[in-house]
């Protein structure tokens, strides 16, 4: 029994996959990694197309092999959600993302609500810094997953409840290169994965019917008419 458990987990522990695609190789951070490996491999005569073909075919072969061998134990691992895939900090991100949340008032003023590690923007920080919630916005993908949008609407609802003066809330990721000691800092900050939610977006209606995640409308500013929608056009 022990021998079987060790053999099965030993196979599962072999770090295979996920399958590398051409789309993966075209990603900025992956390209940077390939560039660095090519700096070494080109010295021994390996060309970039050769290396990329090797990675694509090699990953495909091993993923297919793993799928075949692991098939009998897959239901067991799915049931218990056990595994031996220990990819922890496989690479260090040189252009990391910083999750931020900001509100817009009617006159277009931007109100910083939350920004990771920013002591001046700590709205809901207990929740947004929690490891389980971080998994919702700690993205390494080039497209916005649906959960990110649902999560953003949830956060926006909370922000509208706490800040009646806001007419829109935006979640985004600030991407900035980390300089090494002695390197000149690159102050360019790219804003990525931006998703803006207006109060109108949260009012149940035809649009809301399409999205069952729509929470009830948050209360507006006391004694005022509901704010006009700015759609996605606010500065």
């Amino acid at each position: 029994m022990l021998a079987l458990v060790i053999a099965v987990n030993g196979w599962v522990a072999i770090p295979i996959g996920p399958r590398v695609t051409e789309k993966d190789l075209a990603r900025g951070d992956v390209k940077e990694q390939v560039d660095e490996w090519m700096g070494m491999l080109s010295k021994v005569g390996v060309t970039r197309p050769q290396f990329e073909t090797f990675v694509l075919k090699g990953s495909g072969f091993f993923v297919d092999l793993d799928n075949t061998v692991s098939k009998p134990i897959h239901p067991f691992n799915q049931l218990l959600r056990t595994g031996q895939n220990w990819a922890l900090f496989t690479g260090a991100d040189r252009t990391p993302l910083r999750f931020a949340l900001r509100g817009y008032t009617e006159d277009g003023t931007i109100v910083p609500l939350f920004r990771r590690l920013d002591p001046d923007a700590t709205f809901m920080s207990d929740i947004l810094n929690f490891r389980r919630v971080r998994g919702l916005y700690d993205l390494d993908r080039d497209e916005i997953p649906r959960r990110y949008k649902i999560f953003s609407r949830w956060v926006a609802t909370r922000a509208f409840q706490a800040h009646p003066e806001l007419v829109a809330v935006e979640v985004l990721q600030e991407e900035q290169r980390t300089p090494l000691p002695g390197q000149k800092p690159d102050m360019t900050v790219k804003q990525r994965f931006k998703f803006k939610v207006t109060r109108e977006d949260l009012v149940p209606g035809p649009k809301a019917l399409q999205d069952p995640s729509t929470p009830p409308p948050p209360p507006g500013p006391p004694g005022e008419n509901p704010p006009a929608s700015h759609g996605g056009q606010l500065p």
Partner: protein
Amino acid sequence: MTQYRRAWLAWVNAWNDREAPWGIALVRIGLALCLLWDLSWVGIERLVVPLWAPIQAGGWGDVLSRGDVPFVWRVLPPTAESAWAIWGTLMVSIAFVGLGILPRLSTIVFVLLYAQTASIMDDADRGIDTMMRNVLLILWWSPAWEVLSLRAWWRSGSFLGDGAHHPAWARQLLVLQLVVMYFGAGITKTGLGWMPWGGFTALYYILHDPAVARFDLGRSLDPLYFLTQFGSAITILWEYTSPLMLLFFWIREKPTALGRFRDFCLRWHPERLYVVVGAAFHILIAAGLNLGIFPFAMLAMYPAFAAPWAWNTWFKWLPGTPNPAPQIADVG
């Protein structure tokens, strides 16, 4: 005797040790405390429904429209109350694991339900959660409940148990699991920042990654850049060579072969260096990075590294007698 039979007997003999199960009992209690803390935080921050309820009940996951609807949401009504029931069952079952009440039943209930939460919201389920499920499954088969538990008190009249020795294979398997994790984490570190030709920059970048860093360090770490490089080098070296720990532990607990190398290991205890470096690694992670319970849950598993006789040597008032510690003079 055929060579296969000899190999089989050697395999059985390798896993046939007996010891007082203090180490694995402490792992059980440590993991239960970490999970209770983490799950309490989910409850206190009212994240139960967002994390684990279907989207129709206010959750973040569109779990009911998936092809593989998790079992709990096939049998429970998709409401916020059901999500709270899942959370309550997790809390009670892991508390029972820690206390040693109906230990095997509570462990399997917890693991199965915890796996369901991972199926519902896999973004909120991290590597450490998988690790804890693995370890709890090992504990399920183990004698971790025979000491430091209400079950021990019920059976022997003492919370500390009766001092009897039990099979040691579960603790040894846990050591193997830890080594597999560390080695797996090492060989998947393919980023050049972990390599000498990449300047060992990885730790510097990680400490400046806002997604995981505990502090906004700015340029304040620059004068200590060499220490982060040293830390990166030690991390990768430690993880790559972690399988050596198995050899050192083997020699410590079964000092029967390998001559001078065995004598060296029994005299200088290199396994202690590995354990100290590993513990320091997790303490520094806890100080510099915000990874939730990860470093604490990992440290909670470290009692498995202690020699089986160590507990009765350190704490002479514990019931039972220590296993005879191997002495260099005895194995010449």
